[in-house]
């Protein structure tokens, strides 16, 4: 639902149905709403059958990359004699993204249930939920929910009387965006600096503690429960566009827009209607100028692209961007683009783990040059230098943080070159001065 606003009639609320409903946070309240029925059903099934249902449903990872979830789970080979692990990625730090936060603070038991189902499906006895340290409120609710679930013997050494051990632990991060990258998260969980690892080996072969590991985003794991209860076909049908993108997706909307919040729509929903109707359109007297639809790491869309987008994995790509994490950042005509992009670059420079030269140097220089353009001290050559650095930062590093920093720079210069040039030529950006209601 459009939390903190009322649910819009065009939303399809599967995961966000109980946002704002404090009773759903407790075990009793969660059970009253059908909670833990999916886990009960799962524990009666063969793990391989669960993996098949999830495969069949078309569910794809909601953490950013969109990797098919059932396929990821199928990489975990049963009977290899090694302990398997599940990691839940609740590090949510991608600028613009705050959907996992709402999921955890309103429906913490949904995540405990999702973790237990996935752990059972991949043959893991232990699941770690890695939550960013700043999320004090989600941490509180998750710890409480885990404790309630242990006390009710829903998880633990004999989960729901199934004879299976499923432990779920909450692990608190300590402030580092890079720990959202899956291998950095595992390093961090092991008690190390959060430096991403070189892949391969992939986590399914050698993950946390060197053992086969599956890592999924909060929203991905929570989606598994309704899929098991209602079937793969039900999930597949929730799509207005194409069979490669199925189900509902949460979008956290922020920036210069009437009703920022977390919305849930089916795949393929028209982005124009989403921005203007569900989210209420621009602030009074302003116009939308650009949208970054999937967190700060994806290309910037101009409004022509955004308004032509169908909201699914392929739809965002077709219009020059990516679905990413579903963090929709809306930028209006009062914002100088160079300032926005320079601040994004500063974010990446701050968060680079500094292992790779291209990333460590590239993010720092990109920020420096953008800030001097912003301050009216840039030259036309700076634009070429920026594009040159961006090329050196792309596809050459251990993880894609480096690429992510290059993305808004390249798309920004391509789509809003006029604003860069105006600053360089000494014409200052004049924001619209209309009153904001």
């Amino acid at each position, binding site marked *: 639902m459009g939390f903190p606003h009322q649910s819009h009639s065009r939303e399809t609320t599967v995961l966000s149905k109980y946002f704002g409903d404090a009773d759903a946070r407790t075990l009793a309240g969660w059970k009253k709403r059908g909670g833990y029925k999916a886990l009960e059903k799962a524990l009666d099934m063969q793990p391989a059958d669960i993996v098949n249902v999830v495969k069949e449903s078309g569910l794809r990872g909601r953490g950013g990359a969109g990797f098919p979830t059932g396929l990821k789970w199928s990489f975990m080979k049963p009977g290899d004699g090694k302990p398997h692990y599940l990691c839940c990625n609740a590090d949510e730090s991608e600028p*613009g993204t705050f959907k996992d936060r709402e999921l955890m603070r309103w429906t913490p038991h949904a995540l405990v249930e999702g973790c237990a189902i996935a752990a059972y499906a991949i043959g893991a006895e232990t699941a770690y939920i890695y939550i960013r340290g700043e999320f*004090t409120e989600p941490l509180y609710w998750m710890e409480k929910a885990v404790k309630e679930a242990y006390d009710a013997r829903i998880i633990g050494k004999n989960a729901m009387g199934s004879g299976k051990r499923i432990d779920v632990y909450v692990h608190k991060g300590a402030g580092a965006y890079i720990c959202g990258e899956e291998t950095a998260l595992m390093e961090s969980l*092991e008690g190390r600096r959060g430096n991403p690892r070189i892949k391969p080996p992939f986590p399914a072969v050698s993950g946390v503690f060197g053992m086969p590991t599956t890592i999924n985003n909060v929203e991905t794991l929570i989606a598994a429960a309704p899929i098991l209860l209602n079937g793969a076909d039900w999930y597949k049908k929730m799509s207005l566009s194409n069979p490669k993108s199925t189900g509902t997706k949460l979008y956290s909307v922020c920036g*210069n827009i009437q009703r920022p919040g977390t919305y849930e729509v089916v795949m393929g929903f028209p982005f124009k209607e989403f921005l203007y109707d569900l989210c209420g359109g621009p602030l009074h007297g302003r116009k939308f100028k650009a949208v970054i639809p999937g967190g*700060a790491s994806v290309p910037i869309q101009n409004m022509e692209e955004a308004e032509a987008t169908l909201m699914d994995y392929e739809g965002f790509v077709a219009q020059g961007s990516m679905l990413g994490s579903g963090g929709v950042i809306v*930028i*209006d005509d009062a914002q100088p683009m160079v300032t926005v992009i320079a601040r994004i670059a500063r974010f990446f420079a701050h968060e680079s783990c500094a292992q790779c030269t291209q990333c460590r140097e590239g993010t720092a220089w990109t920020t420096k040059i953008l800030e001097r353009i912003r301050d009216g001290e840039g030259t036309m050559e700076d634009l070429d230098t920026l594009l040159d650095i961006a090329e050196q930062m792309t596809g050459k590093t251990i993880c894609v943080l480096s690429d992510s920093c290059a993305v808004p720079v390249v798309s920004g210069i391509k789509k809003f070159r006029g604003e860069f040039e105006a600053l360089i030529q000494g014409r200052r950006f004049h924001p619209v001065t209309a009153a904001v209601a």
Partner: protein
Amino acid sequence: MTAELVGGLEPPDYASHDRAAREQYDPVFTGDVKRELDELLTRYPTKMAALLPALWIVQRVRGWVSDQGMAEVAGQLDLTPAYVKGVVTFYTMYHQHPVGKYFIQVCTTSPCGICGAEDVVKAFLRHTNTGELGITSPEGRFTVIEVECLGACGFATPVMINEEFIESVTPDKVPDLLARLT
């Protein structure tokens, strides 16, 4: 050590370091706190994995993570103090110096930036009499810093005061927010 040697980015409070070094160090991990650590150790196949949680405990009890605190954690988990320091310095949330009684973090990343976060920062700096980011106010009450995306961008501007997370802060709300703090 001089400030130049450590880059001088955020001026560390060396006086308190010296004080801390001279003081006798009371271990953190005794009694209930030790039992808490023992329980944590059962959750992981290695002792090292309890490092981040153990450091959180030190910060909870002492307000910051001193060199002696790191050494104690190292002893508990069979690690070297140098290793522990290497990990502590990677993460932004462990305080390696004492901070104000109220540690105020204001998000200024782009999504909040375009909603006026800079003005919120200015309001905090003015009303706390700190004047500058990272500086602790004379009576040791406040430290204000900018922080990267707090994961609540739809509630611009989110602010963290110690463990408390406050949404939708605007400059005009700052005096009341501060007045609430005892």
